[in-house]
């Protein structure tokens, strides 16, 4: 079964063809970094404008690379439930028009669930249940994944997502957008113990996050040094900031895994591409004897393959969307019925 997956949650226009939920035939992402660069962050209206311009190109490339035509597609899956509303509208419009014209099933899915499925896509035999940390510029959750489509949200951020904190710190220091990859790179040259930044909510018994205070602490450090005319060693600052974020993410996720008694941890979303986060998780998981799964780097940021993979399992459970499907920017993550045995 071939599914076309379309994802336009934020500033990536993405389309992919995935066979039977695990074999990626193509995974095309057209980024918009150049459009948003001068603003130091994503401008929703400009993101939507760009999606509209490129959407058919991206879809055509996904078909070409997979070596198929529209007629070969069995169903169309699209993120319709989470992201920048103006951006999602474009992906949903396109998916609906294609599904309607081809008279093929339309499957509206949830962006964050898509990130969970970026791991299942790559490791179809992953053992349930597992704990999944989803972490990007737009979301930051710890989810107990009991089975296909069966979730318990254990925790989420009260304010900024971790990726958002990376972006804002990068903007403050006039580094490029998005902030994650560049901070990851510069932090490698710095001392993570140089600055003692707070680890927000690390000792609280719940699994929630808050990164706004940490971001403010970094900003205040920069501000203070500028006022006192003291130069700051940027790699040290970034290494310390990154370490604080990672300490919180790892500690809370590992605690959730221990408390729920699962044997596996999955880490998904844009920030899961961070090299120190990967190393730390791998080390810690090793000591507590739990398996840890990361999607391939190409599946960490927004992509159509995860949407197509999720669409496959959703379709197999008997679900399809109506042509009245609308775009929603922040629908809560909900469980759906498990696969028929």
């Amino acid at each position: 079964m071939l599914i076309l997956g379309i994802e336009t949650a934020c500033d990536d226009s993405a389309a992919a063809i995935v066979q039977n939920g695990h074999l990626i035939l193509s995974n095309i992402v057209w980024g918009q970094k150049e459009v948003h660069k001068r603003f130091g962050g994503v401008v929703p209206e400009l993101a939507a404008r760009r999606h509209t311009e490129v959407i058919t190109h991206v879809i055509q490339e996904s078909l070409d690379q997979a070596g198929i035509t529209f007629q070969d597609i069995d169903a169309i899956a699209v993120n319709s439930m989470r992201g920048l509303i103006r951006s999602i509208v474009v992906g949903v419009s396109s998916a609906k028009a294609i599904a309607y014209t081809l008279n093929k099933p339309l499957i509206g899915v949830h962006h964050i669930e898509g990130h969970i499925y970026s791991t299942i896509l790559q490791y179809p035999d992953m053992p349930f249940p597992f704990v999944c940390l989803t972490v990007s510029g737009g979301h930051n959750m710890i989810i107990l994944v009991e089975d296909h489509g069966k979730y318990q949200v254990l925790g989420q951020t009260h304010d900024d997502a971790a990726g958002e904190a990376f972006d804002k710190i990068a903007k403050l220091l006039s580094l490029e957008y998005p902030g994650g990859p560049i901070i990851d790179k510069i932090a490698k040259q710095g001392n993570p113990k140089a600055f003692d930044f707070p680890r927000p909510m690390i000792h609280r018994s719940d699994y929630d996050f808050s990164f706004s205070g940490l971001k403010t602490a970094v900003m205040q450090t920069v501000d203070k040094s500028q006022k006192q005319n003291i130069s700051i060693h940027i790699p040290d600052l970034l290494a310390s900031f990154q370490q604080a974020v990672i300490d919180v993410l790892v500690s809370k996720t590992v605690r959730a895994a221990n408390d729920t008694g699962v044997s596996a941890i999955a880490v998904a979303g844009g920030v899961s591409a961070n090299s120190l986060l990967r190393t730390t998780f791998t080390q810690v998981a090793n000591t507590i004897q739990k398996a840890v799964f990361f999607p391939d780097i190409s599946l960490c940021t927004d992509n159509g393959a995860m949407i197509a993979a999720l669409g496959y399992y959703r379709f197999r459970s008997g679900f399809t969307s109506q042509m009245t499907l609308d775009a929603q920017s922040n629908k809560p993550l909900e469980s759906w019925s498990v696969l028929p045995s």
Partner: protein
Amino acid sequence: MIILVVDTSGDKGTIAIGSRSRIFGEISLDMTMSHLPKTIPTLDYLLHSSGMSLSQIDILSVVTGPGSWSGIRIGVTLIKSIAHVLNKPIVPLCSLDVLAFHLCWTHMPVYTLIDAARKQIYYAIYSCKQNTPVRIHEPELISIQNFSSKIDCPSVLIGNGVLLLQKHSEKELYNNHFMAPYYHSLPAMLLVKAGFYFYDKNFSVHAHDLIPLYLQQSDAERNFDIWQKQDLKKGS
């Protein structure tokens, strides 16, 4: 030859199917904040009830703006995706042009005006002395305050921008010009007529090349420009 035209550039959405000589079907309904859930089901209903299928359509056409940004993106993306799958040409329509088709055989200059929010209007000027309008001023965004300076002879004004002028501009403008009856949407008949007219003029494009006509910067760009100008001033 059969054309399918979609207009989602305003609160009222219109879908029409027609040939050069007749309209096979048309639906206009309020789509305020609901262009996305309503357009395809409406199109489906129209096709079914007029006994047609998408495969019978030769030309696709869509209003690309100016108008509601999100509404336009929905119409444009729907039509370009259908055209992409079916490999059919698309005729992009400018909402201001379509309005001018209302007033063919008018001997005065015709101004078409669409509300652009923030006390601004999109407008264009046409010579409509014959069966089809001819643009004599390209579509532009202007503040209501500056609009009166753009009219130098008795003219006919049409479009929902007229309502805005009524509210905000001086009476003089009103006394010297003719306000056409207020049309709040682009009627199916004119959409089909304009669609064929621009198709015949070879204005059709491939799905990949269809883009909306915005005429207005996003807030972020506008603020960025203002901020840069201030910065330049400070520096000089």
